[in-house]
């Protein structure tokens, strides 16, 4: 078999292939659900109800989507320039660390001053965390996939060390957790008494800003050029290495905001289970969104819905909630296949 580029992607193909990808994911997970001894229709109904069937469910889904929007944006930006940042998890935790360092009373300012200061430092930290791998890539030709992956492990151990050391809450009954951030450093709740917080708005605004950067600025154009063909971009006079470094700074900063928003908006303090893999799930979100920053918002809400819905479902239907991870991983693989088939025609010989 061989692949031929399609002259133009027809509107039907643009709709049908992604739908086929979703259908394939549904069929595969249905088989697993049946193996688990449950009815797929009941399970999917319960997942949907758990994700969007009530105001409580919807609010929970949007809350869970917030960090995924940040990590999804971080990955989308990086992948657009073919900078394979698999280290959003590390950048997230470093963002959370800086939030705790500045937000637990070391700096006292009114909210209007303290929160922007924390955001600035958090983004700077995340940016610097990815600067290392970016420099290793551009200067020494070290593959950034492995360095960013390894950094995830290093950072989580570093955070563990801090939580048992300098950042440990003396009132924490021996648990490795930080103090709670002071009131001035907390993001307000969007709905009284609900978990949804201002971080969600911040995530939407970030998505719009990133969209503008990608579509309307020289940097966005250069990033796409580098991602499309680095050699051609270099030939056209684009400073490829500088573009990669700028992309890294933006990507790392965005991922770190996920950690800030989780601590300042939701959890209030830092623990080692702050992220159940938001950095890795951000890769799926970004791919489902076809690396489009606005699409990231929709994809993050979709993926968050699967997780929230599956949690609710597993409590009542006796199907392990790991089904959500399986669905998300499967949809990643089927969706990248669908995207390819939208652009190429398969010829069998």
């Amino acid at each position, binding site marked *: *078999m*061989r*692949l031929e580029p399609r002259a133009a992607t027809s509107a039907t193909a643009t709709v049908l292939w992604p739908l086929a990808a979703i259908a394939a994911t549904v069929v595969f997970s249905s088989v*697993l659900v049946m*193996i*688990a001894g449950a009815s797929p229709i009941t399970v999917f109904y319960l997942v949907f109800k758990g994700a969007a069937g009530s105001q409580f469910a919807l609010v929970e889904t949007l809350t869970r989507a917030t960090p995924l929007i940040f990590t999804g944006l971080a990955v989308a930006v990086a*992948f657009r320039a073919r900078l*394979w940042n*698999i280290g959003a998890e590390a950048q997230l935790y470093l963002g959370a660390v800086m939030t705790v360092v500045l937000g637990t009373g070391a700096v006292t300012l009114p909210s209007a001053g303290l929160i922007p200061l924390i955001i600035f430092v958090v983004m700077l930290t995340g940016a610097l965390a990815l600067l290392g791998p970016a420099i*290793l890539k551009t200067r*020494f*030709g*070290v*593959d950034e*996939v*492995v*360095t960013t*992956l*390894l*950094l995830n*492990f*290093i950072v989580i*151990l*570093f955070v*563990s*060390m801090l939580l*048992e*050391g300098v950042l440990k809450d003396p009132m924490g009954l021996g648990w490795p957790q930080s103090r709670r951030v002071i009131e001035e450093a907390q993001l307000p709740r969007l709905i009284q008494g609900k978990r949804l917080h201002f971080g969600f708005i911040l995530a939407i605004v970030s998505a719009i800003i990133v969209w503008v950067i990608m579509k309307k600025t020289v940097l966005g154009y250069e990033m796409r050029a580098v991602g499309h063909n680095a050699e051609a971009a270099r030939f056209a006079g684009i400073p490829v290495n500088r573009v990669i470094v700028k992309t890294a700074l933006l990507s790392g900063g965005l991922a770190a905001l996920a950690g800030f928003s989780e601590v300042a908006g939701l959890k209030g303090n830092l623990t080692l289970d702050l992220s159940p893999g938001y950095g*890795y799930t951000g*890769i*799926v979100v970004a*791919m489902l969104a076809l690396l489009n920053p606005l699409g990231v918002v929709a994809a993050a809400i979709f993926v968050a819905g699967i997780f929230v819905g599956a949690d609710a479902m597993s409590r009542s239907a006796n199907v*392990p909630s*790991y*089904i959500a*991870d*399986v669905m*998300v*991983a*499967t949809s*990643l*693989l089927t969706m*990248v*296949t669908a995207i*390819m088939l939208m652009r190429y025609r398969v010829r069998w010989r």
Partner: protein
Amino acid sequence: MTEAIEILFTASFWVAAIRIASPLIFATMGELICERAGVLNLGIEGIMVAGAFTGWFTVYMGGDLWTGVFVAAMTGAMFGLLHGFLTVPLGLSQHVTGIGITLLASSLTYFTYRILLPEVSSPPKIEPFEPFAVPLLLDIPVLGPALFNQTPLTYLAYLTVAVVAFVLYRTPVGVAVRAVGENPSAVEAQGISVTAIRIGAVMAGSALMAIGGAFLTMSAFNSFFFEMINGRGWIAIALVVFGSWRPGKALIGAILFAAFDAYQIRLQQITGGVIPYQIFLMMPFVLSIVALVVVARRATYPKALMIPYQKGER
């Protein structure tokens, strides 16, 4: 201070080093085969999880230990087939597909574990491989126990290196594998299918990765735990670069790395809590990055690595 140096001359240290090296050797050889054929396999971490589980579960269900190893290898080969199909004929991004395979293999494994053992709070145990002492050779001081009083899977790991090296450099199949990683159109011109060679190599490599995972549940420990692979797959990828895509050098890299790992555990006991234990746990990952930086400058990647091949194109 002398204590820190004395460690290096104890047999138990070298026994541990060789044991720690074993799963890394399988995984590194597996990744090396894939990359030599031009396919980066980031599914490695998940494939190791799947191999660790299926091998262990086969034995738990009453299967023979070697049957367990075989089942693990087949599981790995199936994920390799998936990765190969998506990246070779379809030409999808090897990075994205690999991460997808890792997520799929590990989540599918955890899902299956929960289905098969729903009520289990502490994971059940199996009788793992026992060390097998090679007579006479065992009596060599220090090296004897380290090299010749290990479990059969460790001997298999060393055999694998020899076989991989022999196949890659001394057989027509190996020449074809290396060639599709360097110059696929030249291979196609000889009437050999690049697709078939690449998919075959990814399947064989993934089978080895899965055996590496199975080593942990069937030889090092006697049970399956979540998160037990803990980055070993990513370290294997670094070791492939460190070994410059050569089996012998990669073997030396894996042993050095494992020796360092075994050493830091013992050093930790000597220093007795003065240095936070996390620093020691970080060292393997830091060391991998350092190794990459040191070697990357003069590393010669297989030229067609990560470049999809299309028949008739140049």
